[in-house]
């Protein structure tokens, strides 16, 4: 049965219409399936892909307007799935991304102060690192800068290695916490180093 291959190509095409042609070359499909996929209207496909992106973005944008503005400036090419609860998180090794909530309604976007968990392969971490510089100083945006082997928070670069197992909390973060108690929600981040890096980010309110 080739329906699985058909659906697989279709899903990939929804997510990235530019991949359709190479996927079609590789996929084992029936003649009819190949004709349908090959005949998909490129414009409609791109529109749908854009609407997927827009729909997901709207949810997170409603919840975290300042954070999203920051991401738009600093992480335009980066794309990461974010879910409200640990239990909902799955691996997304296929796609690099940032803060792209599955916004099927505002309730599914992460709430302020909830923990979202992001998983990266180390290759993806390196890719992120290529596009990431220091975070801006203390504006309470609450996003992270990641670098392979380094973490930069509010201008302070923190080196870590695979020896840093378990939860990582830097002096900067401890200071952040103290400040947060005084000034309201700010950034916070936990970092874990594992064979597949797991980053746990407490999503911040924009208040």
């Amino acid at each position: 049965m080739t329906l699985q291959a058909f659906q697989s190509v279709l899903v990939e095409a929804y997510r990235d219409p530019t991949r359709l042609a190479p996927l079609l070359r590789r996929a084992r499909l029936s003649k009819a399936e190949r004709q349908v996929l090959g005949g998909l209207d490129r414009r409609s496909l791109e529109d749908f892909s854009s609407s997927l992106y827009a729909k997901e973005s709207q949810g997170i944008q409603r919840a975290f307007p300042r954070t999203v503005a920051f991401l738009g400036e600093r992480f335009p090419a980066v794309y990461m799935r974010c879910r409200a609860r640990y239990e909902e998180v799955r691996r997304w090794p296929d796609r690099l991304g940032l803060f792209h909530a599955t916004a099927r309604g505002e309730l599914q976007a992460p709430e302020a102060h909830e923990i979202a968990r992001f998983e990266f392969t180390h290759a993806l971490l390196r890719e992120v690192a290529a596009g990431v510089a220091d975070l801006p100083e203390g504006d309470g945006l609450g996003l992270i800068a990641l670098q392979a082997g380094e973490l930069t928070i509010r201008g302070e670069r923190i080196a870590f290695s695979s020896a840093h197992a378990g939860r990582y909390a830097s002096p900067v973060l401890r200071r952040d916490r103290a400040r947060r108690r005084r000034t309201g929600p700010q950034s916070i981040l936990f970092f874990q180093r594992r064979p597949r890096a797991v980053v746990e980010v407490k999503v911040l309110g924009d208040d």
Partner: protein
Amino acid sequence: MATTEIGIAFRRAMARDLLAHRDEFDVFEVIADHSLFNHAEARALADLEAQVPLVPHGLDLSIGSVDCLEDGRYLEAVAELCRRRGGAFYGDHFAMTKLQGRSIGHLSPLWYTRAQLKVVVRNIAAVQARIGRPLALENITRPFDLGPSDLTEAEFINRAVRETGCGVILDLANLFINAHNLRFDPRRFLDELDLSAVWQIHLAGGRKVGPQWIDSHSSAVAAPVWELLEEVAPACTNLQLVILERDNEYPPVEELIADVRHARELARG
């Protein structure tokens, strides 16, 4: 025809207003997925259910995916929800939302072929057995037709109903939007659909962007959708519920109440 209940989609942004006027609504529709893995949300829903009956509406069953049944964790969560909550059926969509562990992030249309129907029938039967109640599945908007199909959408739905005993959630706004965007007569679809299988009707407002209507749930129900409701409701002999869905750009609650009352008049005749 049994008395049709009329409800509204319960959304957090409108919670206070909706609860203040709870007597206007027979039920609240809640998004099942928000509480499936979220204990706090599940507790909040239990509190809410003490005030108004709830109708869970799922988003991520992905009944069209070839590997729908492999997401055991999701299915178990839905089954658990069905064990906890009342209701004659569990609602989701004729759609694909995930495949091989990856989410599309949206309800994506199915290709109405016999091969796809076979998968859908298999999935519906297995899910119904797992959750212990029938499914009612909704027609979705589709951005484009995938291509020449073996079956029309209505035939596809009818066959799925006939072979599994599931019901249909007829979203009239989705029908109106598809009919406009894909240029077909919505009445032709309704003529073809087995209306006795319609257990629930959804109403919502869309947004027009250029020549296309978008299923945005962000505006008042359009006049042609009301007309469709008036025409079709008497023929839906097993209609149990009509739900008004509004997900953003919320108007004053009085407007929603007026729409719910109007829906009640039309649905109950």
